[in-house]
């Protein structure tokens, strides 16, 4: 009952906002040229999907972000594990990692376009540079925070390095890694869309850039909405996987994380 009531409030707030937007736009209180209106945006999205013209773009963006997400996470988790377990290597590489992470990623987009062309590859590369650090820092932190007593206990019980990795380090880091995954998805989308926006021939970022080029605010907003729903769906999927894999945690802690 409580949950239902909460949902009603949430949906109500959205409807109220949309209704106000529609009304304000129709009555000229805000300029429809700059702000469009929900009914137009909805129609545009409907047309995109019914004619199928959005699918190639959606496909390209999905591909880019999934690849960036996958490889960025794999690289980040692998390097995070390695450096957390090899403190001397971590000490050597520390300034380099900090320096690389200090680069604002957007400035990398032109250089990646030069290196990897206008296609999918340059966007994936940009996404990876964003996703990698999130996964890396979270994995590193997660492994570092393994309770020393639990670790010593496992070693005394006869665990080898492989056992420790599988039964101690990775599960301990799992909740950190999962919280990083949810941030990573957003970053992967940013990588893909910013890359497309700055130079490409397909993708949602390209679609938005095209619409913007002809002052088509409806198109810009429609692209934003599609992207938003897209990220929310992915985030929910990761949440499902997380609940299945990290079900050992006490509920209170799970609610916080």
């Amino acid at each position, binding site marked *: 009952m409580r949950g239902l009531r909460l949902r009603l409030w949430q949906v109500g707030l959205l409807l109220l906002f949309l209704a106000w937007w529609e009304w304000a736009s129709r009555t000229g209180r805000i300029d429809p040229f700059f702000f469009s209106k929900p009914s137009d945006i909805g129609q545009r999205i409907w047309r995109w999907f019914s004619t199928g013209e959005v699918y190639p773009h959606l496909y390209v963006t999905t591909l880019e972000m999934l690849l960036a997400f996958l490889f960025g996470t794999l690289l980040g988790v692998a390097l995070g594990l390695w450096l957390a377990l090899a403190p001397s290597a971590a000490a050597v590489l520390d300034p380099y990692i900090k320096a690389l992470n200090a680069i604002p990623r957007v400035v990398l987009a032109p250089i990646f376009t030069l290196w990897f062309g206008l296609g999918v590859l340059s966007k994936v590369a940009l996404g990876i540079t964003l996703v990698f650090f999130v996964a890396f820092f979270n994995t590193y932190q997660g492994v570092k925070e393994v*309770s020393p*007593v*639990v670790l*010593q*206990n*496992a*070693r*005394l*019980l*006869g*665990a*080898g390095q492989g*056992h420790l990795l599988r*039964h*101690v380090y990775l*599960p*301990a880091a*799992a909740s950190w890694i999962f919280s990083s995954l949810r941030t990573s998805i957003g970053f992967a989308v940013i990588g893909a869309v910013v890359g497309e926006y700055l130079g490409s021939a397909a993708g949602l970022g390209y679609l938005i850039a095209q619409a913007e080029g002809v002052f088509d605010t409806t198109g810009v907003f429609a692209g934003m909405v599609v992207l938003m729903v897209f990220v929310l769906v992915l985030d929910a999927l990761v949440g499902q996987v997380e609940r299945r894999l*990290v079900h*050992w*945690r*006490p509920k209170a802690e799970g609610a916080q994380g």
Partner: protein
Amino acid sequence: MSFLEFRQVSVAFGPYVAVEGVSLRLAPGEFVSLVGPTGCGKSTLLNVAAGLLAPSHGEVLLEGKPLRGLNPAAGYLFQQDAILPWKTALDNVALPLVFRGTPWREARERARSWLEKVGLGRFPHHYPHQLSGGMRKRVGLAQVLIANPRLLLMDEPFSALDVQTRQLMENELLRLWQEDRKTVLFVTHDLEEAIALSDRVVVMSAGPRSRVIGEFPIPLPRPRDVAEIRLTPEFLRLHREIWELLRGEVMRAHAGA
């Protein structure tokens, strides 16, 4: 020949000397308790016996041979919870067998009978956070015992439990110990617990530079009930005798702190 021998063991952490010149022999199958005021380096000696800590001077002999690295004969029950929070009670107990190459199915089967031995037969699929403190200790005990160590090291394992649970656990420990008489080195600051459980009580001086200042054989008959034995005149006599020595050290520790 003694099963485990400390020979002039000193441990220093930088300039701080925790224990100095400790010599101690444990006969096979003997139950020895170390008592002493807080901070007297009892746990340090356990860590040395487990091979988690190398002595700065002196050596530890296991069946006459100097100990290098982790002690292969030792099972260690820590003061804090050391079981894996992301594994069920059953899997936690099965883990030491899996580390030794037993397939999961067989390891779980044997773990189940151990859970029953420690009175947790009804909770195989509970996670540690769903169990009480005493139950988690039982899981820890079963986890250590399933690997059948010949030496059992225990670091104030029951200090966090309430008095009733504690006496229950002490009796349970004695019952399990009686089955195959492992050599036990039990650390506690509770003199009554030490007398009730042990064949011999070793008193250590207040730290730093803690050393052995007294050894008392406990000739109380076995099997014992820890709650009842506390009321016998022989127990009270031993308690008075050892407390005489211990009190001075406790005072000194207090004055130092």
